[in-house]
């Protein structure tokens, strides 16, 4: 029974990982797949319905919605991956260091993490992005300020739990230096939960980035990004619903795929 469940779980992980990878590939190949230039405005084809030339129709400026959705995938997915990766690296680094050495370093970093965690992420993000002015990078900084703390706490608690295990002590007795032990003994043993956490953060981060862009605090127009596309087009949703619906569907599908992947991986790990 248990064996069968495990097998099903493995299949689920594989399928969702393949679909997620496919989305990433589509995003990377946006410039190859897109039939039209996403930034060229066309005065003779404003808000035209989906057709053979414009698969998803055109928006208020006559730009091809299909091409913009593809380029938007690149913006959203790249921004999300970079943000999660940076938070993951920085947070894990700080967490392992403070878990391993403890003492004053641990006190300081964990107090900073406490303060960061003491405030609602989106509220901080809106305030910070608002102050830094628009732009994708300021939106990413705004979300990253609170995000690294999750990784730091996780890495710290796992490091703390294994740093006095016999094999770590043995390595220490054998004369290995702190950094070497952290790299070759601690990191490989705690990387799995950290990666799982990173996967589960992807969906939330996408919601955050497109939410900030929707508010006008993320990407600057005319850059194609799903959140800002939906915001731009919602004023004329009555006349051209496709200009809202297709980026909306793209957002929902992408978030669902990555959330599902995160869930499956988490379930798979829980089985062990």
């Amino acid at each position, binding site marked *: 029974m248990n064996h069968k469940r495990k097998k099903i779980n493995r299949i689920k992980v594989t399928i969702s990982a393949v679909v997620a990878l496919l989305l990433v590939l589509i995003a990377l190949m946006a410039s190859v797949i897109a039939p039209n230039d996403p930034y060229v405005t066309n005065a003779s084809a404003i808000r035209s319905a989906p057709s053979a030339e414009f698969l998803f129709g055109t928006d208020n400026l006559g730009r091809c919605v299909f091409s913009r959705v593809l380029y938007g995938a690149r913006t959203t997915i790249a921004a999300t991956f970079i943000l999660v990766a940076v938070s993951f690296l920085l947070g894990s680094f700080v967490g392992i260091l403070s878990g391993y050495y403890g003492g004053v370093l641990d006190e300081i970093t964990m107090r900073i993490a406490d*303060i960061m965690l003491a405030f*609602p992420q989106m509220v901080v993000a*809106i*305030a910070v992005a608002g102050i*830094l002015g628009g732009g994708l990078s300021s939106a990413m900084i705004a979300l990253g300020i609170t995000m690294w703390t999750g990784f730091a706490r996780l890495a710290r608690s796992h490091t703390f739990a294994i740093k006095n295990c016999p094999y770590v002590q043995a390595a220490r007795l054998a004369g290995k230096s702190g950094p070497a032990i952290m790299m070759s003994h601690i990191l490989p043993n705690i990387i799995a939960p950290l990666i799982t956490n990173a996967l589960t953060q992807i969906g939330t981060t996408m919601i955050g980035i497109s939410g900030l862009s929707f508010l006008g605090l993320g990407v600057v127009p005319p850059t194609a990004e799903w959140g800002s596309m*939906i915001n731009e087009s919602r004023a004329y949703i009555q006349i051209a619903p496709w200009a809202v619906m297709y980026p909306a569907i793209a957002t929902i599908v992408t978030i669902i795929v990555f959330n599902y992947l995160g869930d499956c991986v988490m379930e798979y790990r829980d089985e062990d």
Partner: protein
Amino acid sequence: MAKQIIKRILGLVLILFVLSFLVFGIMYLAPGDPAEKRLTSQGVVVTKEILQAERERLGLLRPFIVRYADWLKNVLVGDFGVSFKDDLPVGPKLIKGLENTSGLALCSLFLALLISFPMGILSAVKKGQPVDHVVRLFSFIGNSLPNFLISVLLMYLFCIQIKIFPVIADGSIKGLMLPALSLAIPMAGRFTRQIRSEIIEQLGEEYVMGMKSRKVKGRYILINNVLRNSLGHILTIIGLQIGTLMGGSVVIENIFRWPGIGKLVMDSITARDYPVIMGFVLIMGTIYVVINLIVDISYRFLDPRSF
């Protein structure tokens, strides 16, 4: 226990103090000159002298520490300064916005609980059955939907296709429905999942098995023991969502033009109206940490083992 609570409160005061410093520091370093913004918005032709005089008048030329101490002193007595935009005091503006926002937040919290409680219990009791799969599917999708998307879709459906609700939330109950629903749907998805897993965990406990073997009715165990024991956890789950709710309400208020604190802060961000933004972050931070403290304390009270 009293000692622990006092310790937590002291820690909270320290955290808020640090926050106030950070908020002020970021504002201080922020790009964009409020004096210039203010003058241009009034249609004044900006010269060096006028700009300097305006900065002097707004107190922007004093040293950092003096400005911070001054601001903090006033904030502690409830005076958040005057708005750079229209010279009106910021405090009443924030309070007015906060009233509307709390209305919206409570309404959506209520809706979310109304949906997720029965759903979570149902799918926990019917674990593995078709009902459970359907509920899990819906809660998973709900959890994956960004609230701004839900609101755009709801607006399209209910305001444009079937004209039952107003597009602009004018402060009436009818206008409140769609924004509250937009916030409630993702939250309900999250609550359902967590309530489900909490109840499943409780149902696997030994006391449930013991009661079942004594032929106590399943419904009786569920209501009298399982639900009571899960209440503490469920309360914590709600507490953890308060932050998401606050962030979400900023987005939703701006879509539906709901006159809450989130709409106020977005308007202030465009105008670089620093006193309002600072007040907003400080108030939201305070509410958030206080709510979490209350949740923590009541969690202890709700746990029968703490007595």
